[in-house]
């Protein structure tokens, strides 16, 4: 009896091993991405187009439920994915550790690259700081924009933010006045998440990232910008306060017409395509300068990749003219190539909506704000600002505490 049992157990173990019929180590190019199920489906569509041009290259998608731990463990073990998504802040750390492949030689040999077609400044975020060689090719980008409810503006008889911006009358004060006029009957003039404060300081003239190791937040301009943000709900009552934000997020408030304006990334536009009111996109207001935050993602090739040539072909196709055309139609983010971004493929996404899909593309920062200890510095600043949003502390005091912490972090 015991012998039969042992044989049975052995058979099961063998069966387990045999179940892995398909080999995992075939010669494929692995592409690691983040996003939801829909994005993966769309990526498969792009890969189908890729395979029309390169039928011999098989691409395998890895979409982990938690991106960075997975990427890190694969790199630590020496089996990184061939091509992977990389955000501009994380790029600095990964590049420092030598995990990313230098693509400059491939690009020099690639006659279809057209570096000038890329939006200026964005490619630079993935160049080595000293040699200026390209290590990652940006795939698309997103800015923060002002969504607004056209119908509410019409009913209140106010000019739209686009019109005001066109006339040069979209300063912080204009924005605040507009919001006040629109705050009535249980509707807020504007809704924004507390975490979106990062658009305001540069608009207020605060030059807070002065070097890879120099982050200065305890300036009067920075404090004024933060206080302006907090006062939207603390003083002027034009925006939902922290408790109200926790109950119903600003994005849902805008979607349910509880807020006339909403500051968010342009990437939210596709989720709003089925809303049953007229809305549009406008640039953010300005004060002492024009600024909007930029989110930027690139394709990088791993240094330890086993198929660097194929990996480069994949990355360059997806960021090339053809790939960008297909991605533009999906409408999630702004194409990285100017020719595509201003073409009808992208500008006319959501044609029924008639939204100004490219109007906000002008006011953005030349250099991306990057600095060391990225995650920890943001955590320190956000933590210090929490009492400011609750109205329990003034911005200047909170920022002084944050600055102390930043000095400590940079000194490590």
């Amino acid at each position, binding site marked *: 009896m015991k012998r039969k049992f042992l044989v049975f157990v052995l058979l099961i173990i063998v069966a387990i091993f045999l179940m892995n019929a398909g080999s995992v180590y075939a010669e494929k190019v692995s592409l690691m991405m983040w996003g939801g199920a829909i994005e993966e489906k769309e990526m498969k569509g792009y890969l189908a187009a890729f395979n029309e041009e390169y039928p011999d290259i098989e691409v395998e998608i890895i979409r982990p439920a938690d991106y*960075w*731990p997975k990427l*890190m463990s694969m*790199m*630590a073990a020496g089996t990184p994915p061939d091509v992977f998504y990389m955000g501009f802040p994380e790029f600095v*750390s990964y590049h420092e*550790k*030598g*995990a990313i492949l230098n693509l400059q030689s491939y690009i020099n040999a690639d006659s279809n690259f057209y570096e000038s077609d890329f939006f200026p400044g964005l490619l630079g975020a993935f160049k080595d700081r000293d040699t200026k060689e390209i290590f990652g090719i940006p795939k698309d980008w997103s800015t923060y924009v002002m969504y607004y409810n056209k119908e509410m503006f019409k009913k209140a008889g106010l000019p739209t933010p686009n019109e005001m911006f066109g006339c040069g009358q979209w300063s912080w004060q204009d924005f605040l006045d507009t919001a006040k006029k629109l705050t009535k009957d249980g509707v807020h003039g504007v809704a924004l998440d507390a975490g979106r404060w990062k658009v305001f300081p540069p608009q207020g003239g605060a030059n807070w990232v002065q070097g890879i190791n120099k982050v200065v937040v305890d300036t009067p301009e920075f404090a004024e910008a933060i206080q302006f943000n907090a006062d939207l709900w603390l003083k002027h009552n034009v925006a939902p306060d*922290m*408790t*109200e934000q*926790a*109950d119903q997020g600003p994005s849902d408030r805008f979607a349910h017409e509880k807020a006339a304006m909403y500051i968010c990334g342009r990437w939210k536009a596709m989720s709003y395509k089925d809303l049953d009111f007229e809305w549009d996109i406008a640039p953010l207001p300005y004060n002492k300068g024009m600024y909007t935050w930029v989110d930027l993602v690139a394709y990088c090739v791993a240094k330890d990749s086993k198929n660097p040539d194929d990996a480069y072909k994949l990355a360059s196709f997806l960021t090339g003219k053809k790939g960008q055309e297909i991605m533009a139609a999906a409408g999630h983010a702004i194409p990285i190539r100017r020719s595509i971004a201003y073409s009808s493929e992208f500008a006319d996404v959501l044609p029924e909506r008639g939204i100004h899909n490219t109007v906000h593309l002008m006011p953005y920062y030349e250099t991306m704000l990057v600095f060391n*200890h990225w*995650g*920890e510095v943001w*955590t320190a600043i956000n*933590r210090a600002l*929490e*009492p400011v949003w*609750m109205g329990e502390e003034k911005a200047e005091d909170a920022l002084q505490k944050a600055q102390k912490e930043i000095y400590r972090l940079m000194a490590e």
Partner: protein
Amino acid sequence: MGRGHSPFPFFIKFLIFNKFPNIKKKKRKVKDSQMKETRLSYKHQQWFWGYLFIFPAMLGFFLFMLYPMLSGILMSFTKWGGFGSQEWIGTANYVKMFNDKHFIVAVWNTIYYTLGILTIGVPLALILAVFLNQKFLKGRNFFRAIYYLPVISMMVAVSMLWKWLLSTNHGLVNYFIELIGLPPVNWLLDPRWAMPGLILMSIWKGTGFNMVIFLAGLQGIPQVYYEVADIDGANWWHKFRHVTLPLLSPATFFIIITTMIHSFQIFQQAYIMTEGGPQESTTTIVYYVYKNAFEWFHMGYACAQAVLLLIILILATYVQKELQKKWVFYE
């Protein structure tokens, strides 16, 4: 087993039985393998069977857990970003840890959380188990399954629900609080109340788990003890205090230790519900470890923190093991 230590008389018996196989067959119920082992003393037989029985589990441990655990411990003595080059820095991480006020806060938060769970959650689980063990209850199993549901629900769904429940203006919890005349609590936005809110949610989510174990313990208590107590005229409190609790103590010991180990490593709730805030009030040790390891490229430092957690738990468990002689009652 139970044979004499000297093999000599046995040898003679062996010869006799071989020649006269009919003698004393009914005592020879032992299997073939026993014939070989009966040469060994009882003590050594126990060794053989002991090692044999723990072999699969220890194989699993040595093959799959020892290397990662030792790696983790060794990594704590390095400066490492998670991949790329490692640099041996000895105990520098540990020194940094004791001077890091964020880490100290995390340790206090974790202790606070664990005490909350142990003092409220465990007795609650016991009460639930007692309630759901009563014989007259129809559909006991059905109710038990319902009380177990939160344990297996996805944390994402649970946190969605509890963010609403703990909402300052619209939440059910504040509704009941205001009903009894107390002022509403700004649960998830007030640093003083965020952790209690988290504890509340965790108790609600995890009680079913301990309840199932208590139930198993209760079901293992022979009815005869209760009947004897009845005869002696004991009321329900006496029965509970002098029959149930002592006989339940092995299970209780288990629950206290495992709840402590589990609570000290709490992470999901803090990560999904409150993101360690507000004002770090819900930053737990493992939350801080995760941040350091995967978002701030301080893997070596994170490992040092984890090792400290390991040491705390080992000490706490050891103390409990010694204390068990005083209150845990094995038959």
